[in-house]
C-alpha cells in the first residue's frame, strides 16, 4: 500500500473501508483525490455476504421467515413482511384485515426508528455530535414502544405466516399515541435545526446534488429518489398489507441535495406519525391469524414493500414442498449505491461520508451475491470452486 502511494503520485487514492470509522458496516470505497477534491470514485461490495438465500432453501417455510428477518437489523419487520406477503399470495391465503393493519403499524413504527437513527448517523458524519446524541436519545422512545408492543427491540418477529403474533391493547394504543406525539414535537424541532442551522447548512446545502434525470437513470429508490423529485413509493404505487385503507401522502423535494434528503426523511416522519394515529383509531376488529398450509402451492411470485430506505423486493418460488425452492432478495441500498459514485466526483473529500450517509446505506443487507472471476476474467462457477477445493485438499 505504501509503495502504491510513492509510485502512483498522480493518482492519490484514499481508501474508505472495509474497516473505517465512517462505515458501521463493511464496504469498500476508493476515492481518487486531487488535494481535497475527489476526481473519481469506485465501490466494492460483498464483504458481508452471508449466503442467506441459499440457506433458506434447506429450511421449511416457517423457519425461513426468521432467517430472512435477520437480513437487516434495522428493517427486520420489512423483510419478514415482504416474505410473508409473498408466501401468503402463493398459498392464496386470506390474511385478516386486523393483522394487515398491525403490520402497517409496526412498519411505520419501524420507519420512525430507522429515520431517527439515520438522522443521528448523518449528523455524526457531518461532525454534529450533539444532534446525533439528541436524536438517538429520542429514538429510544420508539424503541421502547416497539419492545413493549412486539417483545423485542430489534427482530420484532411480529409476523407469522398468515398473520401477526401481537395485538394492540388499549393500554398499548395510548402509550404509542403518547410516544408518537412526543416524537412529533421533537421532529419538528429537528426539521427546524436542519433547515436553519447555518453551520450545518454549509455542509448539506448544495452538496451531493442529484438531478431528477440522473436519479431516474440510476434507478434510485426510496427517500433518496424522492429528495430528487422522483415520485416513487411502493406504498402508493402498489399498496400492500393495509396501505390501501390507510393511504400515504408522498413527500417530495426538488433540490436533490443532502439538505433535501434530510427534509424528506424528517417530513416522512410526520407522515408516519399521522399513519400511526390513523391505524390506531381505525383498527379493524377480528382475528390475528389465518391457518397456513405446511406445503405451499407450486408457483412463483414477487413481493414488494417500501422499506425505510426504499423498495425491498422478493422473488419467491415454490415447488410445492415444505421448503422454498428459490428466494431472491434485492434491498434498496443496492439501487442507491450507484448514486454515491455518480455524485461524489467534484466534491471535497470531507463531504464523502456525508454523501455516503445520504443514501442511508445498509451494507450487510445488500450483499447478496458474489461473482467470483478468475485471473482471466471468466466467471468461476460453483462447481469449479468445489473442484478447486478438492484439489487443494488432495495436494495437502
Amino acid at each position, binding site marked *: *500500500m*505504501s509503495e502504491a*502511494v*510513492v509510485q502512483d503520485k498522480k493518482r*492519490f*487514492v*484514499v*481508501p474508505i473501508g472495509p474497516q*473505517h*470509522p*465512517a462505515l458501521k458496516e463493511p464496504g469498500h470505497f476508493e476515492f481518487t*483525490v486531487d*488535494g*481535497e477534491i475527489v476526481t473519481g470514485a469506485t465501490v466494492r461490495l460483498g464483504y458481508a455476504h452471508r449466503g442467506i438465500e441459499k440457506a433458506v432453501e434447506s429450511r421449511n417455510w416457517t423457519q425461513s421467515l426468521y432467517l430472512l428477518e435477520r437480513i437487516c437489523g434495522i428493517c427486520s419487520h420489512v423483510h419478514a413482511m415482504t416474505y410473508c406477503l409473498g408466501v401468503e399470495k402463493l398459498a392464496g391465503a386470506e390474511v385478516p384485515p386486523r393483522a394487515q393493519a398491525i403490520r402497517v403499524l409496526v412498519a411505520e413504527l419501524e420507519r420512525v426508528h430507522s429515520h431517527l437513527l439515520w438522522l443521528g448517523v448523518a*449528523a*455524526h*458524519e*457531518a*461532525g*454534529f*455530535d*450533539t444532534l446525533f*446524541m*439528541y436524536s438517538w*436519545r429520542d429514538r429510544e422512545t420508539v424503541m421502547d414502544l416497539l419492545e413493549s408492543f412486539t417483545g423485542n427491540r430489534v427482530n420484532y418477529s411480529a409476523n407469522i405466516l398468515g398473520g401477526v403474533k401481537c395485538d394492540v391493547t388499549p393500554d398499548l394504543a395510548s402509550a404509542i399515541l403518547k410516544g408518537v406525539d412526543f416524537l412529533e414535537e421533537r421532529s419538528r424541532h429537528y426539521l427546524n435545526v436542519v433547515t436553519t*442551522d447555518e*453551520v*450545518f447548512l*454549509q*455542509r448539506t446545502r448544495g452538496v451531493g446534488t442529484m438531478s431528477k434525470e440522473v436519479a431516474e437513470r440510476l434507478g434510485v429508490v426510496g427517500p433518496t429518489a424522492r429528495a430528487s423529485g422522483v415520485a416513487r413509493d411502493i406504498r402508493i404505487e402498489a399498496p400492500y398489507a393495509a396501505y390501501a385503507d390507510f393511504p400515504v401522502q408522498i413527500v417530495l423535494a426538488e433540490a436533490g441535495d443532502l439538505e433535501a434528503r434530510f427534509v424528506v426523511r424528517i417530513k416522512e416522519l410526520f407522515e408516519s406519525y399521522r399513519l400511526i394515529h390513523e391505524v390506531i383509531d381505525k383498527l379493524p376488529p377480528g382475528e390475528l391469524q389465518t391457518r397456513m398450509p405446511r406445503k405451499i402451492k407450486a408457483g412463483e411470485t414477487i413481493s414488494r414493500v417500501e422499506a425505510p430506505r426504499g423498495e425491498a423486493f422478493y422473488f419467491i418460488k415454490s415447488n410445492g414442498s415444505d421448503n422454498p425452492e428459490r428466494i431472491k432478495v434485492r434491498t434498496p441500498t443496492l439501487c442507491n449505491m450507484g448514486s454515491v459514485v455518480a455524485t461524489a466526483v467534484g466534491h*471535497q*473529500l*470531507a*463531504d*464523502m*461520508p456525508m454523501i455516503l450517509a445520504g443514501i442511508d446505506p445498509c451494507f450487510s443487507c445488500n450483499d447478496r451475491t458474489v461473482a467470483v472471476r478468475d485471473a482471466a476474467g471468466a466467471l468461476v462457477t460453483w462447481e469449479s470452486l468445489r473442484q478447486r477445493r478438492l484439489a487443494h485438499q488432495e495436494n495437502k
Partner: protein
Amino acid sequence: MDVLKTLFILLIFPGGLFVLANGMVYEWADRKLVARLQNRVGPRWFQPLADLLKLLAKEEVVPESVNARLFVWLPIVALAGVLTGALYLPIAGLQPSYSFSGDLIVAVYLFSMLTLCTGIAGANTNNRFSLVGATRTLTQLFSYEAPFLLAMLGPAVAAGSWKISDIMAYSSTHPVILLQPVGFVIALIGLMGKLEMRPFDAPEAETEIVAGALTEYSGRGLALFYLGRYAELIAGLTLMSAFYLGGIHNQLDYIVKTLVLLLALAGVQTLMTRLRIDQIVGLWWRYGTLLVLLQWLVTLLLKGMVL
C-alpha cells in the same frame, strides 16, 4: 543545589508534571461539560489518566516506511515545546517561573510546535489518512496562526509591552474584554483551532480520515501527543484569562476564570458542526484576519487619543 531547584521547577512544579496533571483535569472537565450539554453522563474523573496509562502500557508500533528517528522524537519535541512555553505563564495563579521582555512571542511560537510536530508526524508516514490529515493540520495552522497571534498581541499593544507579566498588570487595571471584544472572540476561536476542537477538527475528522495525522501513532507516541494537547489546553486558557479577563491573581481567580472560558469552549463545541477545511481557511482569512486588524486599528487610535 541551584541545578536541583531548576530541575524541580522544570520537571515537577510549576512546570512539567504539574502542568500535565492540571491539563488532565481540564481535559476531563471539558469532556464532562460537553457530555452534560449533550445530556450524557460523561467520563469519570480519572478517565484522561486511565487513557494515558493504557496508552503507555501499549506497544508502540513504528511503521516500516517512516523515518524512525523522526517518528520517535516528534512527540517528545512537541511536548517539550508546550511545556517550555508554559513556564512563562502564570499557571494556576503562581508567578511564572521565567520571564523576560518579549516572552509572549516566544511562548506563542512554542505553543505552535505541537501543531507543527503533528503535521510533520503525519507527513512522515505513508498512510494516506495521515497525509491528508497532515495537509489539513498545516493548512489550518497557517490560517488561524496569524489572526490568533494578532489577537494575542492586541492587549500587548495596548499595554505597550511584550512581556506577559506587564500585559497582565495592564489587563488587571483595564477591562480589556470590553476594549477589545473582537480580539477576545478571535483569540478564543483561535485557541479552539489550535486544540483542534470542533468545529475546527477537520484535521482529525474521524469519519473521514480516521485519526488524521496521528493515525499511525500508538502507545507512547500517541500518549505524548495527547499530553501535549492537555498542556496546551491549560496554557491557552491561562493566557486568555491573563490577557482578556483581567489577569490572574490567585488560585481561586485562576480556577473561576479558566472554567468560565472552558464552559464557553464546551458550549461552542456542542453547538457546532465540523467545518470543512476550505471553509475554515475562508473563515479565518476573510473574516478573522480583517476583523482583528480592524481591532488593532481601533486599539491604536484609542491609545493615540489617550496619550
